[in-house]
């Protein structure tokens, strides 16, 4: 035994080595502190972090069902307020639970101005049930329900822009983050839980099993997503983008070639047409958020 305090999200859970979501959970509680109640949707996080004796949560924790963590959180927030209590409430969900099945409850909670923080750990597919596409799966990623093959290049649609949708609900604070930049992520969590009203953070959480890379590369992959412009770290306050992570952009291939979910774009021959479309997505992101570092001549 050491005298060091236990992690609020403790070690010894069942996640894969290199799990981006597990790292996200640890960082969230380091930033939010012990005066926090967590409402967690069905998903990988629920399954790997809860069974005894590998239970990781050292704060009050409740499993909602799949679609309703924001509604359970709404009940908790309203009754805490009535009792004059000050616990922070964090609703935690994967991208499936957030952008697909949970959309209705999230929209309701944000529209009612619920004082809570919703954090989506975005690993870009349903990983708990074995890698099915979600509304947050990127364009052309191969999953078991968007399999690449003769009839398809993988997922046929781009990611749903949930941060913009929730900003449009009048959320005072919306941010995107990445587990590859832990200090930045923790600052954002701290800001969100201390901002009154409904706040939203979508944290990019690479999944070695679902995306097909070695677990030791989680941080490298997370960084590449940002360096290629396929993921943008930014903050929005009252609907306006106020801070953006600037990068010297690399071509998207640098990110795609590292992951098996995009392997079909390079085999048997390189699919220049599809890769160009993905490059366009990155270019649009860079233009929209102004991520490119422009060198002075």
């Amino acid at each position, binding site marked *: 035994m050491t005298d060091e305090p236990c992690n609020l999200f403790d070690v010894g859970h069942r996640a894969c080595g290199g799990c981006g979501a597990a790292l996200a959970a640890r960082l969230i509680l380091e930033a939010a502190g012990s005066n926090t109640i967590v409402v967690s949707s069905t998903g990988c996080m629920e399954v790997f972090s809860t069974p005894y004796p590998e239970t990781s949560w050292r704060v009050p924790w409740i*499993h909602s*069902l*799949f679609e309703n963590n924001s509604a359970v959180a709404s009940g908790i927030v309203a009754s805490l307020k009535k009792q004059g209590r000050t616990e922070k409430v964090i609703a935690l969900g994967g991208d499936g639970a957030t952008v*697909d099945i949970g959309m209705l409850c999230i929209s309701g909670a944000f529209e009612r101005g619920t004082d809570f923080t919703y954090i989506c750990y975005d690993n870009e597919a349903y990983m*708990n*049930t*074995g890698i099915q596409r979600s509304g947050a799966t990127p364009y052309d990623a191969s999953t078991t329900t968007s399999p690449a*093959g003769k*009839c398809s290049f993988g997922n046929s649609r781009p990611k749903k822009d949930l941060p913009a949708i929730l900003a449009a609900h009048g959320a005072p604070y919306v941010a995107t983050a990445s587990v590859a930049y832990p200090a930045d992520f923790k600052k954002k969590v701290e800001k969100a839980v201390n901002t009154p009203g409904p706040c939203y953070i979508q944290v990019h959480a690479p999944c070695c099993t679902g995306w097909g890379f070695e677990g030791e590369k989680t941080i490298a992959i997370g960084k590449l997503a940002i360096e290629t412009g396929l993921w943008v770290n930014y903050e929005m306050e009252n609907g306006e983008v106020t801070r953006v992570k600037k990068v010297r952009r690399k071509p998207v291939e640098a990110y795609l070639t590292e992951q098996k979910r995009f392997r079909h774009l390079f085999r048997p021959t390189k699919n220049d047409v599809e890769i160009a479309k993905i490059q366009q997505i990155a270019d649009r992101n860079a233009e929209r958020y102004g991520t490119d570092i422009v060198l002075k001549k």
Partner: protein
Amino acid sequence: MQGNIACAEGAIAAGCRFFGGYPITPSTEIAEHMALKLPKVDGVFIQMEDELASMASIIGASWTGMRSMTATSGPGFSLMMENIGFAVMTETPCVVVNIQRGGPSTGQPTMGAQGDMMQCRFGSHGDYSVIALSPASVQEMYELTAKAFNLADEFRVPVFLMSDEIVGHMRERIDIPDQVPIVQRKSLQKGTLPFHPDADLVPGFPRFGEGYGVHVTGLTHDERGYPCATSPGLHEDLVMRLVNKIESARDRIADYSITNPEAETVFVTYGPPARSVEQVVRDLGRDDIGHLRLRVVWPFPESALNLFASAKQFLVPEMNMGQVAREIERHVDQPVIPIPKLGGNLHSPDELKARLEVLR
């Protein structure tokens, strides 16, 4: 072949060309296989945002004339209930596969159960009747899924394949026929109102785009399909017809096998417990032990119970707390002994033999 894959293959063989679904253990392989195979036969696979949407999507697809299906498990099945009632009221043919797992709530995602049998029968609000099939083998996953489409089209009703994790994930060798029998949905006769029933109480199907001004509503409606929600007589007639079109055809829908009809002790099973009982009957080789094995559970084939003229007791092993046993009690005077099993494991043949010893 795995049970869930056999289910998907049986559906495609039966002409299913639309699958709307959402991932959930232990049914996900069905969606995955449909995602892989349907595009190759010019079919549609859509992953919906939740199970409310999955169920609604197959209703929409059905009205365009396509054979449509979804697959789920307990939590998703609960979400589908509202739209299942809508499908019943609007007489929309469709197939819903439930690979049952332990409940309530998220329960035991990777363990088998038969706990949704009554939810399937009564889970949506209001009075209604549906058809539910229960496979006990991978072969039956294939055959009964194909059959479900025929029943759905014949009776214009949602048909349930009430399987479970055990059969869904079981791997067995199966025989795939060159083609499966297909009964086409009957179309509406010219000059007939869209919800006017034929003698079998089932109206012909006025598919969208065939020239009928079809009006489909979950409200109580007349034979034109227009809502008239305040007429007591109209509502009574409609609901009675929706129930009777299924219940009056009970013997025709029935599908079961019987072993040792002279037996005094009779096992009644559906789904995986049938396999354990078959083993018991084989092992003991006694003709005083009978077996009624149901492949159709709803509408309940009550006349099959009378085939065991010497029966002194009915034993009903189920992977729930006795849901169908209670239904049997309604139909017979002899004692009905439920053999409930919870937790995800199947009754072992030894367990059932021990039970027979106690009863002796």
